[in-house]
């Protein structure tokens, strides 16, 4: 190949590679930004953060629903499994887990667990702890756990906020004496 042809071909190959890399990186970048915001730049990992009632000032995540009370936990499995528990709620609720590429790899709602739920989150292929609740494998070391509680009014939101005090997101610890 002579003249400008090889440069044009080179630019095209680089363009295709850059296009594919950018498309695949974008969800991870968006999730990284979300995890940084929700965890206070990593200062609050493995703990629930109850969001304020959704208003026009809610700008952390696109398209928030004002009808839900949200609680988010940015989990980090690099130090071992994480215990996640959801306190009961009288209306619709769900617990959803998102990998660092934004995939929603797990959902549990009140139809399946009316009285609340508890899971143990661990890396894919890791051995569940002996006394672990339902084991769920995460495809990534970090990700986001999200609780949605249907709470379309101020009163319902306040009740959901009170209920959320019973939620748990913390490194798993074997029960004392086990």
């Amino acid at each position, binding site marked *: 190949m002579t003249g400008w042809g090889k440069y044009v071909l080179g630019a095209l190959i680089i363009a295709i590679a850059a*296009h594919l890399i950018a498309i695949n990186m974008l969800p991870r970048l968006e999730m990284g930004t979300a995890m940084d915001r929700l965890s206070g730049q990593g200062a609050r990992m493995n703990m629930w953060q109850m969001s304020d009632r959704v208003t026009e000032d809610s700008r952390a995540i696109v398209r928030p629903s004002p009808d839900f009370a949200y609680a988010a936990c940015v989990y980090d499995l690099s130090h071992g499994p994480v215990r996640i528990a959801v306190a009961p709620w009288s209306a619709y609720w769900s617990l959803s887990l998102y990998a660092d590429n934004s995939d929603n790899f797990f959902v549990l709602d009140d139809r399946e667990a009316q009285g609340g739920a508890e899971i143990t989150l661990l890396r894919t292929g890791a051995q569940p702890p002996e006394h672990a609740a339902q084991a769920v494998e995460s495809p990534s070391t970090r990700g986001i756990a999200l609780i949605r509680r249907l709470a379309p009014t101020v009163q319902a939101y306040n009740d959901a906020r009170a209920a959320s005090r019973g939620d748990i997101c913390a490194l798993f610890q074997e029960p004392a004496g086990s």
Partner: protein
Amino acid sequence: MRRAFAWAAAVLVGLALGVGSALGTVEFGRNTFVEHVGPWTYSRAAGSTAAGPYTRAIIAREALLALSSEEATYLSLDRDENGLPLQESCIYELSGGALRARWWSITLYAPDFFLARNGDHAFSVDATRIDADADGRWRVRISPVQGEAVNWLSSRDARRGFSLMLRLYNLPDGYTLRSADLPVLRTLSCPSAQP
């Protein structure tokens, strides 16, 4: 030296084209990767571990932390019945009946995908609060001011290009979305309708 400069230029042009086309695809190519039910659009693969890279990228930008379709279906409407972008200066009416979902809501989002900054606190209507008639039929006014509307979504300061999102939670197993089951948008007045 000249050859090195030419290769450097080729690399820069390639990177610009590649990244630019990726961002352009995510920004303007969403219609290629969504399904249509009448005027509503949705992605069956939203949130799914089986989503393709383009769907995943578009969802990450427009609806990060969306639930998979096993739990919820998100339908978006950003055009009126004439195919024109929804705009603040127009008055619309959305009407529908009982939806098959266990719970549903309709929320208005400004073009930046956040709630419009208007102080009206009329961002959404949902199955638990909507005022419907005895047959379960309901109408929602979408306008900058409430007027006499019973059910109202405020489009004040939502500018041109806002959208409505219909959330359907826990649809029945095996249910297939049909246009006839979904709310219908009608323009009541639009003084500045421009294509």
